[in-house]
């Protein structure tokens, strides 16, 4: 049998070499390591370290483990009813029943780019029914695995086809952005966004950083309801941002995960995207139907690339297929079929807008209740941002140790950046959260 006893010395050298990325030595060492491993009956996976839990999804994991009856999950952005239950929209149930009952329906592979009807309707939803870009066939749209999947495909496409695959991300941004882009082959840099002093937009800082960014750089923009801060530019500010981006020929990449959820109006929430597309420039737009249609686990989304001309859009579409095919071949059918049915049917669509507004309104009411509760308790600090911030989340301004305190003492589960999901609150649980926040803030003060 081949292989001799390898000294611990060789193993240490091989490991070191791997760290310094000396390929030939590392590879040889790797192979010898593997030979050694088998002889000693250990695993070839021995060097694999335990990965930490995902910072956002890991909150739910921790919450599930907690036996306390007063525990509250304000981590992941999944809508809850006033009773604290997940919600399947009525229109979704109706659409699903129709689908399952349909005799002509089958489970054949979809096209690589997915459900074409869904793609058309999805593009129309974000760009508007009268969009000239759509009329001129300038939009390449592919069905994707919710927002994450759309962003990842966009990243891989840019890495392969864009002259400057470097993206600028707002500070802070959704944690997963920082992983999606590098793994997709696009390096990333930050631009100033959130001002902790005002708890609002650092507009001047943002424009400065965009102007300092290279020409042609990709700029990630949250279309509405910025995650995690809830701070959105005003319409005037969007205009200023657009002008700078266009003057530098930068490429906007919109992450649109909350259309309709932010203000309650689908059109209002599409304002920023539509204003950019209206100037004739190009952009990428990732869409998610996880929140606004409550289709979270079905993974329904789309990537749109708005191009200058139809021939370009057609070629771009063909190249997107080459990204998708080696990743998962074609997207899942079920969720997109539900979404398409809702978008297509006048009645279902209308009822959807009503349910959507209902969810958005409940969140706004939670904002008011939390604000009032903090006022009642005389919690120190200015809490206006609870009312001003938009969308599912509130960036409370609480720091990491305050958050840890709230989890430990009050069983409140949230991300360590101080973000809470308002969608996870109810009238019944607001007092408990207010108590926890009060204690955390007052406790911190008394420590100083």
């Amino acid at each position, binding site marked *: *049998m081949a*292989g001799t006893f390898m000294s611990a010395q060789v193993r240490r050298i091989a490991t070191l070499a791997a760290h310094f990325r000396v390929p030939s030595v590392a*590879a040889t060492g*790797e*192979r010898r390591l*593997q*030979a050694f491993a088998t002889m000693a009956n*250990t*695993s*070839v*996976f021995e060097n694999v370290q*335990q*990965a930490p839990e*995902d910072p956002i*999804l890991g909150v739910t994991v921790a919450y599930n483990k907690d036996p306390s009856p007063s525990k509250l999950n304000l981590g992941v952005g999944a809508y809850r009813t006033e009773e604290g239950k*997940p919600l*399947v929209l009525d229109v979704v149930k109706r659409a699903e*029943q129709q689908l399952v009952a349909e005799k002509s329906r*089958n*489970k*054949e*592979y979809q096209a*690589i780019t997915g459900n074409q009807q869904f793609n058309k309707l999805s593009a129309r939803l974000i760009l508007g029914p009268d969009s000239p870009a759509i009329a001129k066939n300038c939009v390449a749209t592919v069905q994707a695995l*919710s927002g*994450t*999947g759309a962003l*990842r495909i966009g*990243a891989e496409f840019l*890495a*392969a*086809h*864009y*002259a400057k695959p470097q993206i600028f991300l707002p500070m802070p941004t959704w944690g*997963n952005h920082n992983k999606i882009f*590098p*793994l997709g*082959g696009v390096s990333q840099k930050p631009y100033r966004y959130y001002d902790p002093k005002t708890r609002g937009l650092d507009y001047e800082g943002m424009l400065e950083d965009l102007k300092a960014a*290279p020409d042609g750089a990709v700029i990630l923009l949250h279309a509405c309801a910025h995650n995690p801060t809830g701070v959105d530019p005003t319409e005037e500010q969007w205009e200023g941002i657009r002008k700078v981006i*266009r003057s*530098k020929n930068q490429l906007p990449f919109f992450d649109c995960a909350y259309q309709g959820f932010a203000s309650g109006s689908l059109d209002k929430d599409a304002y920023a995207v539509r204003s950019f597309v209206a100037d*004739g*420039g*190009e952009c990428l737009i990732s869409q998610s139907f996880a929140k606004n249609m*409550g289709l*979270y*686990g*079905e993974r329904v989304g789309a990537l749109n690339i708005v*191009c*200058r001309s139809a021939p370009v859009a057609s*070629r771009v579409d*063909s*190249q997107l297929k080459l990204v998708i*095919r*080696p*990743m*998962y*071949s*074609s997207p899942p*059918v*079920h969720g997109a079929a539900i979404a398409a049915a809702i978008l297509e049917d006048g009645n279902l669509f209308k009822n959807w807008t009503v349910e959507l507004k209902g969810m958005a309104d409940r969140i706004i009411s939670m904002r008011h209740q939390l604000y009032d509760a903090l006022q009642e308790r005389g919690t120190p600090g200015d809490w206006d941002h609870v009312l001003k911030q938009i969308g599912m989340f509130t960036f409370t301004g609480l720091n990491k140790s305050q958050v840890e305190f709230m989890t430990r003492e009050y069983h409140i589960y949230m991300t360590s950046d101080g973000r809470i999901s308002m969608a996870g609150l109810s009238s019944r649980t607001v007092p408990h959260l207010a108590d926890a926040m009060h204690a955390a803030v007052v406790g911190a003060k008394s420590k100083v």
Partner: protein
Amino acid sequence: MASPAACRNVSARLLKALVGRQEARLGNALKAMSTTTNVSRFEQVTMAPADPILGVSEAFKRDESEKKLNLGVGAYRTEDLQPMVLEVVKKAERKMLESGENKEYLPIEGLAAFNKATAELLLGADNAAIKENRVATIQGLSGTGSLRLGAAFIQRYFPGTTVYISNPTWGNHMNIFNDAGVPWKHYRYFDPKTVGLDFEGMMADIENAPDGSIMLLHGCAHNPTGVDPTPEQWEKIADLIEKKNHMAFFDVAYQGFASGSLDQDASSVRRFVERGMEVLVAQSYSKNLGLYAERIGAINAVVSSADAAARVRSQLKRIARPMYSNPPCHGARIVANVVGDAKMFDEWRAEMQEMAGRIKTVRQRLFDELSSKDKSGKDWSFVLKQIGMFSFTGLNKAQSDNMTNKWHIYMTKDGRISLAGLNLAKCEYLADAIIDSYYNVQ
């Protein structure tokens, strides 16, 4: 270390590196172009060729001939050449609707009930590795998605290791490893002379690969050839892989579909696991449960310790999160429901045997037609010996084109036909077409 996507377009990036010093000028040129001449920044993007497999169905749809026959993609058709949703799947879906499941995010690793069921289906419910928590299972997006997770894991934890893939193999295997940035090479597999396995060539190539390489093996019903090793050959392959310290990476897309028996079709994988070998296994429920478009499968790592398995699971999750966050729930629930209910499980097995049985029947009829029409004495028995959905006819590209252009029979250019798309009524026509293409076209 080059990013996975960058590996794909090496020549383009080289070009970019060469013009790196002119970046400022390029930037200005871009700016000038876009604002004054209205040229797209994606102007250089070329039209990609159609996918060789999925593109066949697209071409088939455009054909207006009555005689047309789609033997391209491996999707099962009934005797009436209709797509089929299994009865047990319809039942499961109705049950799911009635019980009013919610649509919350699954955990990154997928539906727990599905993961448990899929590992047990693959390895056997009483398998020691499962009992000892040595199997890391992550729900993946069918076979492709599961292979991609495995490939990305290999890129990270076995950097520089080459994956050996059969020649020929499913075309998308190469794309998957390319995009994941994993180097690959071929091992000999198909012998066109015997229309069977080139066992000596295969063993020699496994032997010559550097120790600790990774061998991609088709668990059963090899795609595209339909040629599987015999049990004795599997033993020898396992011996050699063990000797060379290679790791086996099984692609199991047809469990239950090949022979009709779930256990028999898993025997190659189970053989390796029984020996205590560490393996990766990608599974798909596209064919055996007809869940093609639901994209349901799994990546499994069978590891020598529970501790290492837990760590591997955590790292597989870390790969999935920036790809799609968490997998789709619908298909996973269907599988979990079917496997979790004894009655539905039995019904599934019966339907699966029916599908496998129909394919064996058309193989027999096709063989009979070929043998009776071809007076040359050529041995067409490979049609009977090959296993699973596909048959490697031995037709070359020109001959395959003739099948399409003259006979309106759609297949892939490597000579592969999907028997799942054939029915008894069309066997004679197909036999005529094959004989014409084989003898009259070079």
